């Protein structure tokens, strides 16, 4: 299916005008891997880049991750409702870890996030994790940065601990790790440095009472010993009567308001451009730009408002290659 060239421009216009109903079409586009669609995606991101719009996309990009079964979806149901009460529009990009052995996947995540189907200000899209082990679906990053122009909150939900939060942290303004009481593995991961210190730690199932309080205290202590005193630790319960949800939303807001957003997002875009470049051209490609370090230094000198594909193209030119991001 070839996209008419006008489509990306039209989608970009709708997103800039805050038209949330553009979201499904944006996702269909960024997930389509034909050359034509990739060129369209690059064009879309170019039109939405800070360099073109004059500022970072206003949404709060929130990464939510944690081991399976801790209650992420129930938490998100409550959190989305909380944001809606605060009159914020929300997009949730749920990356499903389902095995891809057969190529296919079962996307069950949206089933567990309860929302009002008539509410046009909530958008949920599930994507298979694809070939990247435990990582983000290839299109999720692009989708997040595009939707961030129109939505107030964009959530990227992934499953796992020890790996996935690193990738999420690269995209998100605020990273939330969700654990349940008695999950000692998270404590161990933190102590062993396998897991980076998240911005907000959520302990679910606070209805369990003492066990939950104890877990919260243990995590606080572990964080202190790692110097992570900035990390908020919030206890929530998603079963009726829910508790701690407002507090969590406040903690997320507080983290975001203290953030120096523009440099953080610019750095994130540069990292992604480099990651995509090395995925495409491998070590040989990296050597041709003087190695990873040199490439990072070079990227840091580029316009901070450039989108990922534009940075990728610049890297290609710098390396003397003609490339995947060039519009055909």
């Amino acid at each position, binding site marked *: 299916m070839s996209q008419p060239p006008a489509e990306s421009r039209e989608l970009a216009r709708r997103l800039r005008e805050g038209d949330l109903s553009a979201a499904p079409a944006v996702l269909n586009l960024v997930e389509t891997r034909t050359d034509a669609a990739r060129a369209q995606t690059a064009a879309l991101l170019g039109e939405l880049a800070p360099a073109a719009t004059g500022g970072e996309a206003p949404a709060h990009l929130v990464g939510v991750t944690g081991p399976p079964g801790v209650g992420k979806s129930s938490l998100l149901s409550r959190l989305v409702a909380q944001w809606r009460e605060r009159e914020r529009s929300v997009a949730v990009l749920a990356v499903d870890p389902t095995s891809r052995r057969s190529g296919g996947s079962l996307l069950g995540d949206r089933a567990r996030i309860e929302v009002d189907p008539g509410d046009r200000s909530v958008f949920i899209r*599930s994507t298979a994790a694809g070939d990247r082990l435990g990582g983000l679906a290839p299109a999720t990053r692009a989708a997040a940065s595009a939707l961030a122009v129109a939505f107030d909150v964009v959530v990227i939900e992934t499953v796992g601990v020890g790996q996935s939060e690193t990738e999420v942290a690269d995209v998100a303004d605020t990273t939330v790790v969700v654990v349940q009481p008695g999950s000692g593995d998270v404590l161990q991961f933190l102590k062993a440095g396998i897991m980076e210190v998240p911005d907000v730690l959520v302990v679910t199932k606070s209805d369990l009472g003492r066990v939950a309080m104890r877990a919260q205290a243990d995590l606080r202590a572990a964080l202190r010993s790692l110097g992570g005193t900035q990390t908020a630790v919030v206890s929530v319960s998603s079963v009726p009567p829910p508790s701690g949800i407002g507090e969590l939303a406040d903690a997320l807001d507080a983290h975001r308001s203290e953030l120096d957003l523009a440099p953080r997002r610019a750095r994130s875009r540069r990292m992604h451009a480099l990651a995509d470049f090395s995925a495409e051209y491998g070590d040989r490609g990296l050597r041709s730009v003087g190695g990873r370090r040199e490439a990072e230094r070079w990227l840091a000198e580029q316009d901070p408002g450039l989108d990922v594909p534009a940075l990728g193209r610049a890297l290609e030119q710098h390396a003397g290659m003609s490339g995947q991001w060039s519009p055909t």
Partner: protein
Amino acid sequence: MSQSPPPRLGEPDRPWMMRTYAGHSDAKRSNELYRKNLEKGQTGLSVAFDLPTQTGYDPDHELARGEVGKVGVSIAHLGDMRTLMDGIPLGEMNTSMTINATAAWLLALYIVAAEEQGVSEDQLQGTTQNDILKEYLSRGTYAFPPGPSMRLIADTIAYTVQHVPKWNPINICSYHLQEAGATPIQEIAYAMGNAIAVLDAVRDRVPQELMGNVFGRISFFVNAGVRFIEEHAKLRAMSQLWEELGRERYDVQDDKHRRFRYGVQVNSLGLTEAQPENNVYRIALEALAVTLGRGARARAIQLPAWNEALGLPRPWDQQWSLRLQQILAYETDLLEYPDIFEGSVVMESLVADLVDGAREEIQRVSELGGAVEAVDYMKSALVDSHRERWRRIESGDLTVVGMNRFTSTEPSPLTADADGGILVVDPAVEAQQQDAVRHWRAERDQTAVDAALAELERVARNDAENIMPATIAAARAGATTGEWAQALRNVFGEYRAPTGVGEAAAVSSEDVAELREEVERVSDALGRRIKFLVGKPGLDGHSNGAEQIAVRARDAGMDVVYEGIRLTPSQIANSAAQEGVHVIGLSILSGSHRQLIPSVLEALREAGAGDVPVVVGGIIPEADAAWMREIGVAAVYTPKDWNLNQMMRDIISLVGVGHGVDTAAPA
């Protein structure tokens, strides 16, 4: 003793209780049906409730749309129960109610209706199904989360054992597990695990000296498939394990209390839409499984009708099944002998094998923390077994006569008449019931109802109190089914059961290799993997079919969005639009397709996804299938389309053609 047992009993056994699972439309029409059935020699009642009643919604609730009076009778309040039992002496009747999430409520309505007939609750005899775990595993009419659900069950047991002593407060159902694909060992083990969870929960709520009575009031509702020798062995194995459980785990002293008591509805899963007249033989053989040996004979039997795979059976179809029971009990010599399998080497070793296998599986469930905690495990194990059964049918390893073998047939005169040989519920029933419930609400003492519901909520919040007295008071005050359930939903919250599909094992690759190639080819051309939404609109919780479709589509390489049961048309449309799916499959078995399918199509248009092709599967009469194709459904699948791979080929081709991609010609 060297003397062999006498060849005949001194006096033939009394026949089992004969019932027909019946009820449709409203209380008045169902009451007429019950009276006619009793005239025909039926000895007990088996009430089928519609899905809104089963899941705790009034007829005018959004989720009740298309379901009112469909798979059973709509009972929204005391007035309906009064009408349903009008002229039926409740002091003498033995009534089985297939009711689970709302069992406490329907029992309360029954108690108050009896009270109005001048019959006190301690005279009542019957059964409330009241088994929530199998609702999570198979049948889908749950309302509340596991914890509160187990409490409601324990409360009804604790109440009845003291106040309604002849009532069977729970029927532990292995029936639905077999329908969901359970092997005999799984059926035995999960039923026993379920019973243990229930008994452990009740133990905290009744005085210790009553535990023997509690154990003695627990009955089972089992299934019997067409492999009737093994099926009979299964029941003997269950008797043995149950007796053991009473003795060892619950210290039940009285032999009578430890006796395994069960009712049965024989297998519907194996009934075919192709050559449906053959089902009569299957039903007869399955009935033998539960009657042949006196050592493990059913206490109550209800048989399905020959045309269940086609739609709702008519009174005549049900009469035909009742006659089968009567022939078995009154014409044959079945009831004249002692147990005919005693001393049979074959039977004994079959039973021993099943007992051993079941013990192992019971142990596994117990290691996972008991049946409540093991719901996820059991669910995915069942999805796996069902998938295996289906694979064997498709490969021909398992013969189903008339379906995958011996398929050539003469036209059947049984299905040739105008209505296609099924019962069609008058679509006007829904509107009538909606008016009736509004009228009921307008006429009652609202203050009394508000107070009763407030009291109910208070009791629900206090785990130490029994829910039954407040429930009976609410029934008496005139609360509705939806109000009772809503009060509890306010306290307990809503629940979505696991779908079991995520964990299901994949079919072996050679079975789907060709499909995978085709999915890859079309996906490459689209630039995006084929994305397929499998949806179950309405209240129908029979998700086994939808689950198998979802798992097979995944195995074929598609991205499958499956959100479980009980979705509104707008939820489905919203998901389809947001998820960017290429094709939608809807599954409906409750007969509500005439209302729900147009609603879904309309909602899809509104959500901007009107161009996404929709296929429908379920128990759908041919006339309705033709009509659906006319209103825009791309394809309709019924039980005769048992070849899942063929269905997948159609779906891939549908997506390909819709997007201008050449696809392999459907085989």
